[in-house]
């Protein structure tokens, strides 16, 4: 039985087409459809319910030491209010999950994880506290809602309903004691769309009021409520990996293109030895642009010169670019930007080309 987010009734009211995802029932799209929702985020703004994401609180005197051990990024130089993205690895260098760590203060961290992985992550984190490490972990997911306001008009929309001191100016920072309208919120300048925007956390019961307030403020800018479908096409266009597709327990974050968040020069962390052993990388992520006719999705074999060199991990028609694209993991030795490949789409060979990622980058 799937859980409902605090916005379930609101989605139904707005015509959301409800589907199960990550243990929750969420809208895959509203009546406008995925393409229009996608374009709204690229050109104006969109509002997403991402309350399914999990929130884990980390506190205690050894919090920093613990995070540096259990996660691959380095949190040592983090300032209060900063957010930092990190994979979490297993001993084999595979990826347990990817997440965002917010520092609320010394020994006080707020960790946001993927919905379907919340229990898994919490159990993993609890069972990998080193002996003598004084840290407290709390799975606080049910108490939070999270809305994502994304798109170039997001700052103007938020400025109508929040005071400047509640709006973080710098990317990957957050304001923890912010207010949107008169609702207490955490306002974070982050997102999963490749656009400027905010992720806004609040107590679960505030979700419907917050949703209505943001949509009303955004009306004059052309804001649309957006579902999981557009969330997926937007993140793909921006080449942001999705856990479960582009990486999993068997794929290392470095293979998946997340090397920027793996700090090999810090002290021991879970998975480090395996990651050291996999250098140079045997397999690497690459972009695939379809030049023939067809839509390439995940789990399709990629061929170069008649030989399988890897497989796709995500792919579909990308609305802003107006074409068929995919991400793939291929043998590093066969990875060459510009080289032609073929993709096996249900038995039919579709011509494609290896391209650089991301497919789309917003102009600043």
């Amino acid at each position: 039985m799937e859980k409902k987010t605090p916005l379930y009734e609101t989605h139904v009211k707005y015509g959301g087409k409800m589907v199960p995802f990550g243990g929750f029932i969420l809208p895959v799209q509203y009546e406008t459809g995925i393409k229009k929702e996608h374009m709204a985020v690229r050109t104006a703004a969109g509002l997403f319910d991402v309350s399914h994401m999990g929130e884990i609180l980390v506190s205690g005197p050894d919090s920093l030491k613990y995070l540096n051990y259990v996660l691959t990024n380095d949190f040592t130089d983090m300032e209060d209010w900063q957010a930092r993205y990190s994979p979490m690895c297993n001993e084999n260098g595979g990826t347990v999950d990817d997440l965002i760590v917010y520092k609320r203060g010394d020994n006080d961290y707020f960790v946001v994880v993927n919905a379907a992985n919340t229990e898994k992550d919490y159990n993993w984190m609890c069972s990998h506290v080193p002996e003598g490490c004084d840290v407290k972990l709390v799975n606080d997911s049910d108490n939070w809602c999270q809305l994502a306001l994304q798109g170039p008009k997001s700052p103007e929309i938020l400025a109508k309903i929040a005071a400047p001191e509640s709006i973080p100016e710098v990317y990957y920072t957050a304001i923890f004691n912010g207010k949107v309208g008169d609702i207490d919120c955490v306002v974070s300048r982050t997102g999963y769309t490749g656009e400027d925007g905010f992720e806004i956390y609040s107590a679960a019961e505030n979700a419907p009021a917050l949703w209505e307030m943001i949509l009303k403020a955004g009306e004059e800018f052309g804001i649309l409520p957006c579902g999981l479908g557009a969330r997926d096409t937007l993140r793909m266009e921006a080449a942001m990996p999705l856990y479960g597709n582009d990486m999993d327990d068997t794929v290392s974050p470095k293979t998946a293109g997340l090397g920027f968040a793996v700090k090999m020069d810090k002290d021991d962390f879970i998975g480090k030895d395996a990651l050291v052993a996999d250098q140079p990388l045997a397999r690497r992520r690459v972009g695939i642009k379809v030049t023939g006719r067809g839509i390439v999705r995940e789990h399709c074999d990629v061929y170069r010169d008649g030989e399988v060199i890897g497989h796709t991990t995500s792919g579909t028609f990308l609305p802003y670019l107006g074409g068929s694209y995919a991400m793939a993991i291929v043998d590093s030795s066969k990875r060459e930007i510009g080289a032609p490949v073929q993709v096996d789409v249900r038995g039919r060979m579709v011509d494609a080309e290896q391209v650089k990622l991301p497919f789309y980058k917003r102009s600043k």
Partner: protein
Amino acid sequence: MIDPKEPKYSKSHEWVRYDGDDVVIGISDYAQESLGDLVFVNLPEVDDELTVGEALGDVESVKAVSDIISPVSGKVTEINEALLDSPEMINEDPYDAWFVKVTDVQETEDLLSADEYDEFVKEEEA
């Protein structure tokens, strides 16, 4: 412009319109609505033989691929090539956006009238 009341329907949501002895096949408004924004269409080629109950092609939305099931057996005389470049035409007007024209129709599955099809969709949705 075709009145949705005019064609007959299959239970797999294709519409079939008779044009003399030949038939024209497309997908219903309910089908396009359920599939969402269509982004790709795969059609058979002219002279291909279609078999009742088997896929004649497929349509892809952003989220998924779905077979188009042929409600008849027969030979393809014409395909709507405009759909290949503009699959969104199916979303815009599913009764104008025909897929294939078929001649030498040998066999047809039991088709529903427009009213029967409406009932069928209601039952399926319930």
